[in-house]
């Protein structure tokens, strides 16, 4: 039986909630206040109401960044889910040297975004990169990812998939392992084909896992910054910016805290909307069980 909270309960919870309050909650509430004001380094706040939001919505670069974010996030997350599901199914049905294979597949999880950008940039370099030269050697033309925002963002997508596929795979694999094996035996006895078993048993039972993986990955991909910043700096001509880079440029380069904060607050709302399904489910399970 769980007990009703006592004074000691709140003491045990206090370090946790102090950290969250001081570092996440208060600053993000203050960002909302900043977004309703105009300010820069060393200047006071001037109340402007919703002007910053209006300015952001009228800024072509903001829309460019929003569309870029949307395209990269959707692309990255859908590839990861499909490949992650295929890989998890493969592992669950038996691979040789499983422990070793597992370790190798997980490796990119341990790599810093900085290092990931460095190595992919190098391998894709048109004059010295091994991958770029292989593609060229196969007669598919010169690869120069830095020539346009589209190819730059495509490489950002590849790097993102590379670093996060292990996480997606692990989540789905853990969900697969949780499926009761006796279901498969029963289906086998009933003469279900492998395809039927996958579609009738595996997929339906995996829906909650897939949904949580999807939400997690959407939220984390949505805040993407480092890959873009390190690879393209948002260029050429600010055409490959994503929302976090747009925010950074306005906050730390142009010293325009109002615009940056309005963007930030919209990113907060976006993340909360993405998370809402998960939060509602969690609220129910914390109260019910």
């Amino acid at each position, binding site marked *: 039986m*769980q007990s009703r*909270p*006592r004074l*000691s*309960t*709140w003491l*045990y*919870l206090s*370090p*946790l909630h102090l*950290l*969250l309050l001081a570092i*996440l909650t208060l*600053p*993000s509430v203050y*960002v909302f206040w900043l977004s309703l004001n105009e300010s820069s380094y060393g200047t006071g706040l001037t109340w402007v109401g919703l002007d910053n939001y209006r300015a952001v919505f009228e800024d072509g670069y903001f829309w460019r960044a929003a569309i870029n974010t949307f395209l990269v996030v959707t692309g990255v997350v859908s590839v990861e889910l499909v490949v992650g599901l295929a*890989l998890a199914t*493969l592992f669950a*049905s038996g*691979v040789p040297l499983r422990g070793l294979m597992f*370790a*190798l*597949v997980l*490796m*990119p*999880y341990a*790599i*810093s*975004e*900085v*290092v*990931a950008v*460095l*190595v992919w940039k*190098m391998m894709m370099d048109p004059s*010295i990169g*091994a991958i770029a030269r292989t593609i060229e050697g196969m007669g598919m033309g010169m690869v120069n990812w830095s020539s346009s925002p589209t190819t730059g963002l495509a490489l950002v997508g590849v790097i993102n998939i590379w670093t996060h596929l*292990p996480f997606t795979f*692990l*989540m789905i694999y*853990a*969900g*697969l*392992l949780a499926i009761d*094996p006796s279901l*498969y035996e029963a289906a086998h006895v009933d003469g279900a084909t492998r395809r039927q078993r996958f579609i009738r048993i595996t997929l339906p039972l995996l829906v909650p896992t897939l949904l949580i993986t999807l939400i*997690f990955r959407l*939220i984390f991909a949505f805040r993407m910054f480092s890959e873009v910043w390190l690879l393209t700096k948002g260029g050429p001509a600010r055409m490959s910016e994503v929302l*976090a880079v747009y925010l950074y440029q306005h906050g730390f380069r142009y010293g325009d*805290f109002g615009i*940056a904060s309005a963007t930030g607050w919209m*990113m*907060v709302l976006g*993340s*909360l909307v*993405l998370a809402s399904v998960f*939060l509602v489910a*969690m609220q129910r399970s*914390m*109260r019910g069980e």
Partner: protein
Amino acid sequence: MMQHIRFSLAERIMRGLFLTFILIWSVAPILFIVLSSFKRQVDIFVYPPKLVFEPTIDNYLRLGSQWQGFFHAMGNSLIVAIGATILAGVVSFFGGYAYSRYRSRLTSWTAVYMIAVRVLPPIVITLPLFPLVDRLGLSDTHLLLILLYATFWVSLNTMIMKNFFDQIPYELDEAAYVDGASEWQLVTRILARLTLQGMAAGSIFVFVFAWNEYLFAMIFSTNQAKTAPLILSELMGAVDGTEWGVLFAGVTLQLVPVVLLVTLARRYLIAGLTAGAVKG
């Protein structure tokens, strides 16, 4: 899910090809860095890449003699990663205990709030924190990075710990109370030992995150507290044609410890993910 399936030859070939592709995809970039760090400058960008070559530790020697700053940064990374791991571990341990043993409408709301704030994009809080930490004298310090990194993991780690505490029967608590133990003794002496696995699982996430993080490090550390990823990103922009080998040596030193950690402790990663995320 153990399905005993017989695969046809065609299927086995398809499965083999897919697995081979994923293995090359995952490992080749890392192998490229590590091997290049042992190559002479002229061998690094030979095409097709050489797998067999005469290894040299010249790059590492030059890294040691020319780039002292890198080792200072590695030290910073270690301090910050260990600090954040310990702080997040302690905080989530007590949080997980409280959420496992006590419940009311208020505790469940605070738990949902705890997860909700975790979804905020990190870059958003840099805007108000940047001027603030300056005034508090916290900019460019280890402490600030430790606080930031730990905070971004306490939510999930508390959920992980809650799930590990949930697996310990309440009868054990009652038995301890009957024997005259205080709650503090129960938590720190008995339950702590039984939830070590959960702490290990949570610690890996924090350590890997703190060791590799770039955004906060770039914004908040200007000199003294620079971490290894930050230094590497600066070197990446600064090296000219002759220094690639040295850069690869630095990258290798940065990535090897944490790659080993992840591969050796993968069991805990799964335990952590299943407890923290899937069960929610």
